[in-house]
């Protein structure tokens, strides 16, 4: 069993509304509570689901219930379902030791589509991320998910990748158990495949 070394451990899951960050934060939190840990997840949803930025603040402790918002500059890790949102979150909550997993596929903001703003090139994004983190995993989770039948499962792939990094005090079997509790039976197998694919993405 992976142990909890930070007190609390602060993880932010971020993305664009509709990418399913609430689902994976819930699954992760269930697995953590199942390990006997105190977990608080602060969510942003509502209007932000209509194409806006969304965040889940996950705080893990051995024995204390922490507030639902991570203080600025105190995130230990970011699981980013979208590159811009990942950088955005790091500006408010990051610190030099932060570890970051990011799904490389852009979701273009409407203002970028409309030509008012530019979407940075991959190299610029990766450079910026590396400049602000101790470790960056740049993953093609959407492509992997598409390969397994549905792009929407990119979040599950990322959850697998997060698990494999060992940042969170949970193991793959704990997550798979939580997935089985949360997902409907007919979707479980496909999602487990996505989760396991995510595990493989980290060496």
């Amino acid at each position, binding site marked *: 069993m992976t142990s909890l070394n930070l007190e609390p451990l602060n993880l932010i899951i971020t993305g*664009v509304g509709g990418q399913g960050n609430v689902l994976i*934060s*819930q699954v992760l*939190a*269930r697995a953590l*509570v199942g390990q006997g840990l*105190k*977990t*608080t*997840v*602060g*969510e*942003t*949803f*509502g*209007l*932000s689901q*209509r*194409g*806006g930025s969304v965040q889940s603040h996950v705080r893990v402790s051995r024995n204390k*219930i*922490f*507030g*639902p*918002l*991570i*203080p*600025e*500059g*105190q995130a230990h890790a970011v699981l980013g379902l979208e590159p*811009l*949102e990942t*950088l*955005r979150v*790091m*500006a408010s909550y*990051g*610190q*030099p030791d932060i570890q970051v997993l990011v799904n490389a596929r852009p*979701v*273009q*903001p*409407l*203002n*970028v*589509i*409309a*030509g*008012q*703003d530019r*979407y940075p090139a991959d190299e*610029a*994004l990766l450079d*910026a991320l590396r*400049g*602000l983190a101790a470790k960056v995993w740049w993953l093609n989770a959407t492509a992997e998910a*598409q390969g397994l039948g549905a*792009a929407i499962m990119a979040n599950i792939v990322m959850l697998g990748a997060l698990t494999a990094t060992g940042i969170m005090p949970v193991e793959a079997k704990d997550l798979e158990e939580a997935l089985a*509790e*949360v997902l409907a039976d007919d979707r479980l197998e496909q999602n487990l495949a996505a989760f396991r694919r995510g595990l493989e993405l980290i060496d």
Partner: protein
Amino acid sequence: MDDMAGDHPGAEVLLQGNEAMARGALEAGVAWASGYPGNPSSEIIETLARAASEKRLYVEWSVNEKVALEAAAAASFAGMRALATMKQNGVNVCLDALTSLALSGIKGGLVLIAADDPSSISSGNEEDSRFAAALAHLPLLEPATPQEAKDMVRFAFDLSERIGNICLVRSVSRLSHTRANVILGELPGGRGRPRFDTSRPFITLPAVPHHQVMYDKLDQAEAEFEESPFNHYEGPPKPDLMIAACGPSYLYAREAVEMLGLEDRTGILKLGTTYPLPQKFVAEHLAKAASVLVAEEIDPVLERSLKVLAAETGDRIGAKRFYGKRSGHVSPTGESGPGLVARALARIVGREFEPGDPDYRRRAAQVVDELVPPREFGFCPGCPHRASYWAIKQVLASDDRQGFVVGDVGCYTMGIWPTGFNQVKMAHAMGSGVGMSSGFGKLDAMGFAQPVISVVGDSTFFHAAIPALINATYNQAGFLLVVLDNAATAMTGFQPHPGTGVSVTGERLSRISIERICDAMGLEVTVCDPYDIESTTAVLRDRLRRLDTVRVIIMRRPCALVQGRADGFDYRMHVDENLCRGEECGCDRYCNRVFRCPGLVWDASSNRARIDEVICVGCGVCETVCPAGAIVKETI
């Protein structure tokens, strides 16, 4: 989920704040739950609905919060425990019923959960609903964690029954939508049958004596609050500064004190029973320090109560220096957070406070500034509202009378933004759009010549628009009513309403037809499919010329997210690169810049528009948008 309703007292499970409150109601033996969807409260009813058949409770999405409260009151009058849930705006809607009920009193425990939305993360306003407690003279509880939320709701039913009046529980988004460990309590055994004792009527008259009775009930609650486990003090016996905190702000305060290392100088007075304040308990602790920082959301409600208390007990507890929203140490607007409380604290004690590593933050801020564009809100790909507003935009632009759209509350409120082509020029409360249009429709006699289009959703129609529509029709106000019928209460999570034909617990019910209601008023009604831009535009153009009376167009097409889960869409889209004009004269990226659908993006390498196949759902509407006919739809 299962955890919430499971009969496992003592089990420690992960629950969302709303789920925990639902659990608290179950543990109290609730028999009735009603509300109207409203972020951040909606999950309470949804959670109870899932447990309804097993726990034999009645759960309902009512047409509006006033009816929800009244219907819940009926259950209470019949001796059953009842719950009404809503967001801050819902409290406004049911205020008349609330103040009457507070006068008449109730029987079975009746709890009203009001969930506020600080920072208006998903609301049309930022409002603090706690005023209702003082207004209606009702006890108020403010939980800080999901565990406490469950325990307080459980307690609230008991308190309500003991004093014979409604008990208010106030949540905020950062509680309702937060998940955390909750230890479950016991579920009760069976309950009795509803029965109304006709010898004990619930009336408000004569009002003056009843008013006094309300005060007496409050005193009774206050007496209980003096010993409440929901209030406690933590910290040194003689702190330099006391932080009085309620709701999740308590957790922020605790963390702020730790961040600044002020544990031995700062005390935290955590208050969960915030109206009426238990005078003795609070005075005893306030006496400990000369300075008090108040941490709460949103308005300085607790702050004012404490100041009154301090004024009344000043001779005993000494003069106090208060810090908070009134002193400018805490912002009067927006949600709170650990950093914000830490900043206030640091300022009071004369410390510098810089969150995190300053060099890192400077570099990160620069990166974001240079590289990361903002992300505007928008309609989902395939949203019928995008198509409806597109048709409205074209028609209003080619009409020369400076017509405009009056909006209302729902996903379609986003018509105020570029995603809805900035068509909507005003948006207020549920049904306000129709009420205002009724007003505009009578200004013609004074020379007003601008045609008005009132846009209202299907759920909003049932909630509040009908009386306004009757007013308009009867008074011969002329405007175009466009009902955007996407067969759901979409923004809040696709809850059913009387037009959908299904209940929150999944029963099939007889749909109530919007057309027939309008027809009954003698109004001309036309149903259009917003995806069919050409026909819809033609109908809009015609009706806009005949606004001597209210004309109704129902734009009917299910919400894209609902369609996506059901039958899906009909088309596969692609852009013919050879026809696409791109940035040239004759286009200038019209589809990207003006139509603005997230599924229709720009490919910088080919200098052409492109369909993003991960995002595009295949609704086919963009085909009519391209001036070069380069967007092609293929039926699948």
